[in-house]
């Protein structure tokens, strides 16, 4: 490294903030790229759902009415949303905090809401990529979603992303990165098996499971896309309440630094 000399005026002050749309856009783009570049995150958000989608469709050991993909696809979409908006989000936030990025960004001209907003947009971008990839594969497997259920499905996807995203921020912003990693993966596993994603809950459990964000999202998407129309108020209300409560708590507890 040779020692450079700097021409006079090189660092002449000219401060000021860029346009907010540009700041938000660049930040969302950067965070999306980071999420898609991270091997473990891609494994969790894309590869596992793809393998489960194809595997459960081809392997006949779980009794599902034919065409099997009509039952499996909506549940895999719910899994994908939980994986990216909750688990990945929580883990990346935990480690981002450890590496001081929130503090670093907060020390620039970026407004606080844009730091949060950039993360949200990036989470939504990843969800859209997941849904496109998984839907194309499901359609190739013969999936025929009910067109009349699409508006409800879009609303459920947005609310599900918001609910799981808020829960992810709540967890990722609260404790040490290693604990976030362990808890986020554990919750993912428990909700997948017992939270109404892999299979719909029966009897007594349904009362609990359908009030979980996982159960509400999976059941709601299943009803909307398999039967068509609106799945009733319950899944929508459940997801909205989770999003509001978790978001409200997270804004109080999340440590930026």
């Amino acid at each position, binding site marked *: *490294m040779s*020692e*450079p*000399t*700097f021409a*006079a*005026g*090189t*660092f*002449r*002050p*000219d*401060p*000021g*903030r*860029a346009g907010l749309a*540009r*700041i938000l856009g*660049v*930040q969302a783009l*950067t*965070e999306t*790229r*980071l999420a898609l*570049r*991270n091997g473990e995150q891609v494994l969790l958000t894309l590869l596992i759902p793809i393998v489960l989608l194809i595997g459960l469709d081809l392997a006949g050991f779980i009794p599902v009415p034919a065409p099997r993909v009509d039952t499996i696809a909506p549940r895999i979409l719910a899994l994908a949303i939980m994986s990216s908006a909750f688990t990945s989000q929580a883990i990346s936030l935990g*480690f*981002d905090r*450890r*590496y*001081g*990025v*929130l*503090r*670093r*960004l*907060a*020390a*620039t*001209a*970026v*407004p*606080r809401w844009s730091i949060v907003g950039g993360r949200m947009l990036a989470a939504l971008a990843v969800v859209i990529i997941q849904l496109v990839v998984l839907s194309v594969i499901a359609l190739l497997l013969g999936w025929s979603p009910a067109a009349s259920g699409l508006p409800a499905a879009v609303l459920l996807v947005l609310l599900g992303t918001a609910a799981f995203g808020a829960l992810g921020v709540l967890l990722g912003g609260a404790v040490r990165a290693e604990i976030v990693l362990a808890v986020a993966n554990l919750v993912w596993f428990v909700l997948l098996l017992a939270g109404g994603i892999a299979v719909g809950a029966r009897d007594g459990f349904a009362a609990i499971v359908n009030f979980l964000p996982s159960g509400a999202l999976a059941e709601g998407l299943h009803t909307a896309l398999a039967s068509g129309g609106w799945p009733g108020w319950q899944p929508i209300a459940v997801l909205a309440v989770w999003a509001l409560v978790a978001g409200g708590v997270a804004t109080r507890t999340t440590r930026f*630094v």
Partner: protein
Amino acid sequence: MTEPALQIENLVKTYGATTALAGIDLHMPAGCVLALLGPNGAGKTTTVELCTGFGTPDSGRVRVLGMDPATASGKLRERIGVMPQGGGAYPGVLAAEMLRLVAATARHPLDPEWLLRVLGLDAARRTPYKRLSGGQQQRLSLACALVSRPELVFLDEPTAGMDPQARHLVWELVRALRADGVGVLLTTHLMEEAEALADEVVIVDHGTVVAAGTPGELTAAAPDTQQLTFRARTGLDLDLLTAALPEGYTADETKPGAYLVCGAIDPQVVSTVTAWCAQHGVLAEELQVGKRTLEDVFLELTGRELRS
């Protein structure tokens, strides 16, 4: 450029039972380089944090560029650059990507590519942050602090973990910033750094200002006082040495094996000291006559070792 860069009055900040700042005062004119010098835990980082809007003071008053950082952090951060201690970036972000992201927040940023080259990060452009060396992370953090063309920068231990070449590069940068009218507040526990760069040095310890002034003023506080230093085995009986010296001279063991004789040092005094050493079978090494350094000033004021 009439508005002072920084005005701090009687600033107090505690964290639980720990008092980080016990009422410090600072005044920094615009375009000046001020070094906050002190050991770890002296309150340097807390001062920088309160000046940049991270945290609120328990009492006292802070104005940075005329603004209150606690209530106007948004407006303030558009005009300043901050290099937080330990840096900060996404673990997986590429060095160039991080700098471009920070550059995108500024209206008229410096060219990130140029800044990467100047800071010797060209080869590390596509290295993820978590795989950069400590010194590279520091240089990237410095780049992030400068890229927005701020009028005032806060550099918290900017050369920590850097090799000597990188440290000199940072010094060069700070001088260029000053020449272009950018104010710089830097913290350091290296007295060479403070002496080399600062217009104003403020020595802090235990959350209070123990001395302030230009490096020249601080080291020449008592014009007649000169010093003679030497190294020898620890535990010399200094009462005997003081008795051998003329009236008014002092002799101290400032660190184990490091001795300091203060007073008007003339050839006779040097001869007295070496003769005394010879008499006691002591080999005086690194015998040196010279003016005080900031470290000496610090030691006299606090009785503590600066480098920690």
